[in-house]
């Protein structure tokens, strides 16, 4: 198996997924999609963690990726709650309708 899929491929996949996530956050208007894009970014990082873990032959990366998953789960619960309360204020999930994050 070793050397069958080189590390660079994993990292390339991870970077591609991450950029897709970033673009999703920056470009999409639907708040749910933005939210999903954030999840993609987190999982892109997880891929690179697991790949490093495998090639460096220790299990730190797996521990980290579990950590990231836990944080992601917590973040989802908080984030969805925020989205619901936003929706209650304005019956829309379009991010351009929300510009109150300023003084």
């Amino acid at each position, binding site marked *: 198996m070793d050397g069958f899929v080189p590390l660079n491929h994993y990292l390339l996949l991870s970077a591609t997924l991450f950029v897709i996530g970033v673009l999703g956050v920056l470009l999409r208007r639907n708040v749910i999609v933005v939210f999903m894009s954030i999840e993609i970014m987190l999982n892109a990082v997880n891929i690179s963690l697991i790949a490093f873990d495998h090639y460096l032959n220790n299990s730190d990366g797996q521990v980290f990726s579990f950590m990231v998953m836990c944080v992601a789960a917590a973040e989802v619960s908080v984030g969805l709650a925020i989205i619901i309360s936003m929706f209650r204020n304005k019956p829309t999930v379009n991010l351009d309708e929300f510009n109150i994050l*300023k003084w």
Partner: protein
Amino acid sequence: MLNLACLVPIFPLIGSIINGFFGLRIGKNAVGMVACGSVALSFLTVLLMFASLLFTPAEERMFEQVLFTWMAAGDFSVDFGFQIDPLSMVMMLVVTGVGFLIHVYSIGYMHEEYSYYRYFAYLNLFMFSMLLLVMGNNFLVMFIGWEGVGVCSYFLIGYYFEKKSACDAGVKAFVVNRVGDFAFLLAIMYIFNIFGTIDFSDVMHMAPEKLIFGAEPVTIITLLLFIGATGKSAQIPLYTWLPDAMEGPTPVSALIHAATMVTAGVYMVVRCSVLFEMAPLIMLTVAFIGGATALMAATIGMTQYDIKRVLAYSTVSQIGYMFLACGVGAYTAAIFHLVTHAFFKACLFLGSGSVIHGIHGEQDMRKMGGLKEHQPITYITFLISTFAIAGIFPLSGFFSKDEILYHALMDGNIILWGMGATGALLTAFYMFRLVFMTFWGESRVDPHVHPHESPKVMTLPLMILAGLATVGGLLGIPLVHGWHALHNWLEPVLHFDLAATLEHSRHMLHAQGEHPASWAHLLIETEHNVWVEIALMLLSLGIAITGIVGAYFCYVKNPDLPGKFIKGQWGYELVKNKYGVDELYDATIVKPTVVGSFFLWKTADQKGIDGGVNAVANVIGWFSVQARVFQSGFVRNYALFMVMGFLVLLILMF
């Protein structure tokens, strides 16, 4: 018994607090009771202290009570304490005694006022400050009292604050006083600079050792002290506020602007007599300013028609006599005249208040006349006090004024005596002019007004004060050596060893390698010459009678004569307009100050300082407006900035 000292000022302070905060709630009767009661309590306390001071041996009549250390910073330490000695005792007796009578009188006089309580709160506060002034054991406690009486005077002059003229008069009194107060403060600083302390007893003890007779430091100190005194005591050049101060209620004029506050300057000079004795130049200045004020105010007094203004100029003139006495070193005579003046002038002012009260607020003497039938008690007490101020034997003014004139001739010179004697002539003249115009002759009172005698609560103080004005002279029986009670009483305080001081100054000058001029002539004692004194007494009695006869001739016999005489005389117009001093001050000091202040306000402050500050704020605001676009409120925008920042970091790192 002397430990009671701290209670004396506290009673009026408590009275003032009660009346000031709860006066409207407790009702008029209670306000009057509290005000008079608190002053009566202090008067009784002072009497007790006086008795105990009387029974201590003369050399030990000096008691200091330090309540607490007021402030201490490095070398500078001031105690809050009282000094009870014969001099402050005399002042305490006068202040609380006359003050009590005037408080009682005020109950009647102010009865119809709505803000009765406000009046009494201020009056009690004044008593508190005045007692601090005379009782303080150092310059700074005296200074608090000094400022306190100034501010109470301001409050009370402006008591009828609906009247523009009363407000203006209050402000004028306050501002003119500030000039003097500033000089006084400078003097205190200079004294601390030289002595390292501002305690009266320490300073007076150390003065002959630390200062050189007639040298610059002591001259400057005494000059500054004297400027302070001219402000408070309404002497040339700072006297202009006192006649205007007559806008206040009449009892206030009696208490503050005749009997007590305006004599504070005299008290201060006597208190610092050691310093003044060491500055012969300033002594001469004091004497001449006093004499000139006595003369000038008397001339103005002859031309005024407002009954209170005549008395105000008379006060200025009489205080001039006191300074004349101080200037020739006759401190006892100054205090003696202060005491007798407090009696007869308080009586005169209260009498004029009774007249004004009786004819419903009219103050112009041209609209009075013939009041002696309607106000017999007021008339008789007023007449007694007028005889006293004119200097008729054996009333109090005769003794005190005569003593001043005697000392002016013997210890001063003939010019000073001439000023005093002319002033005495004019005093007799204008005071009897006042009596004749007010009480004698045809009634010129508005026919709708029915003059009436004042109530008992007002006439009783008048009678007591007239009695005091009659017998007050017995405090200082002249001629017989040792009978001058006031002189014996004040002797320990005023003791000053000129010979030793001169000797010490000579040594100090020698140490500096200088040779002083001969001071031998200063040590020649003038013998008390009984015959000169008798001759002067007869002369001044003659002067007083001349003045009275002159007034009788001009205002009773030929009432048309003065009108013809003064018609078109430019000299009369000049005097009637108070020598134009007010206009002069207005043009030279007030106007430039106002114009300058206007410039500082509109140009320097509003345009310069405010403009500068606003410009800084505007520039920063402009930048903020530019930076504002970054905070759009869209969360995706913020995310974009994060990404861009991250990219910049990446680029910088690789």
